[in-house]
């Protein structure tokens, strides 16, 4: 964990509201694990005040990638970054996905910009595990396929693939997967994660989710990012330090 200033190589629009930013950092490309994140200072001034957390989307050679949706002021500023601009970030943060357990097939479930951490996860798992990916979005233009493999898609409006949400798609395909040999990795909005959790915990499926929440520091000093533990013991977990990836059995979403 350190502060880095790394140059932007490219920053391009890859979907209606989504950018892919490639930055040069041999050190972070080597050090970061899928599911970890960076806390990025989006401007040179003191405004906006807080850093913005983004998952590492991919790492290849000396470069790392971020995939982000333009949401408010911070991501708007980030979308303006150009080749050569320096990005000030704190990284690596968080725990990352647990990838080495005993399973044959990794099932990746992505809702909207929840796809962001999966290209890197795909790259790392490729070769050692079979990968099945389900990608959901509100409509065809919002389905983010960048860097993903062996995927099926779901859209709320039926404009592409399965009509419905991505968890329903996963459920509809579930019989084709052997539940004992799979591990589910999910990232997306909380209602989606809740549905994944319900489905998987009922069936005892090994499942990790990457959680988002408001953060100030991103490295454990502000206590701003608590998440309720499943086991009630008078304390919270911190999303930034104990997460952002949690086993669904450990937390209440």
């Amino acid at each position, binding site marked *: *964990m*350190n*502060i880095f200033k790394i140059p932007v190589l490219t920053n391009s629009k890859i979907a209606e509201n989504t950018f892919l930013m490639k930055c040069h950092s041999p050190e972070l490309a080597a050090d970061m694990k899928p599911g970890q994140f960076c806390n990025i*200072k989006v401007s040179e001034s*003191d*405004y*906006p*005040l*807080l*850093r913005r957390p983004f998952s590492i989307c991919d790492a290849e050679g000396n470069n790392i990638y971020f995939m982000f949706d333009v949401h408010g002021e911070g991501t708007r500023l980030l979308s303006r970054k150009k080749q050569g601009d320096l990005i000030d970030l*704190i990284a690596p943060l968080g725990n990352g996905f647990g990838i080495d357990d005993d399973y044959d097939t990794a099932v990746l479930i992505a809702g909207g910009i929840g796809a962001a951490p999966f290209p890197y996860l795909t790259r790392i798992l490729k070769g050692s595990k079979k990968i099945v990916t389900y990608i959901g979005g509100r409509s065809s233009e919002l389905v983010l396929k960048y860097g993903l493999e062996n995927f099926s898609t779901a859209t709320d409006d039926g404009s592409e693939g399965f009509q419905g949400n991505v968890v329903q798609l996963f459920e509809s395909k579930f019989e084709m997967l052997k539940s004992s040999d799979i591990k589910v990795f999910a990232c997306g909005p909380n209602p989606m994660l809740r549905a994944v959790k319900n489905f998987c915990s009922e069936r005892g499926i090994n499942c990790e989710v990457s959680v988002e*929440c*408001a*953060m*100030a*520091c*991103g*490295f*454990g*000093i*502000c*206590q*701003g*990012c*608590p*998440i*309720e533990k499943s086991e009630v013991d*008078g*304390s*919270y977990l911190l999303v930034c*330090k104990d997460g952002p990836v949690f086993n669904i059995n450990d937390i209440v979403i």
Partner: protein
Amino acid sequence: MSTDLSIEIGSLKLKNPVMLASGTVGYGNEISTFMDLSRIGAIVTKSVSLKPRKGNPPQRIVETPSGMLNAIGLANVGVEEFVKSKIPFLEKVHSTVICNIAASSVEEYVECARILDYEEVIKGFEINVSCPNVKEGGLIFGNDINAVGRITEKVRAVTDKPVIIKLSPNTSNISEFAKTAKEGGADAVSAINTLVGTSFDIYTRKPKIKNVTGGLSGPAIKPVALAKVLEISRCVDIPIIGIGGIMNWKDAVEFMICGAMAVQLGTVNFINPTAAIEIIEGINNYCKEMSVSSVKEIVASYHIQ
């Protein structure tokens, strides 16, 4: 390089006037990966209470224009566990450690101070009478001048270590509180804690912070904090520790000019965890540029005609 950056707060000697504010660096653990804590004037621990506190449920923080609201709810492990698990780390920090105490009764403050007084690594106490996010205590104490007087006197009675009273800005006469703290035997006052604020989601019509209100910190509050420090400086002869929205060395110097003997960095640690070092260097350079040999010369050096 010959500037003397050391300052004194009562019997407490600090190598420089830059401290890390309570609740914004935990117990120094994580931030020590970014900087050498032995270079910092002092580190103030997250508020400790007698019993452990789970803190408030999420959402606890939200960004506002040039500021943030927090309602952490004084989440902490309680004094017993603090002594067991945090003190050992603090002993290795090689920085001056001030322990911040929060409580919901006078007795609880006294009890905490009594227990912690035995810990050698703790060089002083900062008494948080002003946390706006804890319902039963906090705000009420912070705005009740008699309570502040009683707390100061009772804590003073159980420890010989420096006692600093951290004042609430949510009052119209902060200098009266500072005077009361002084009369109660406090060695210094810290000003300010956060301002009470809120923020709502216009679609759900719910508060963005579960606790409804939170404490406003960051650059947005700097002008208010400076005015409070100046008011105390003009009215009461007691060392002041200036806090509120400091982002860089210029802000720190501004507080010192307005009367602060030392400063504390809060929110900035979240954004720039090496800020303290940069600010110490900046103050040092400023002193050289202004040809002052001791940083104390800039304290309360305001020119008001």
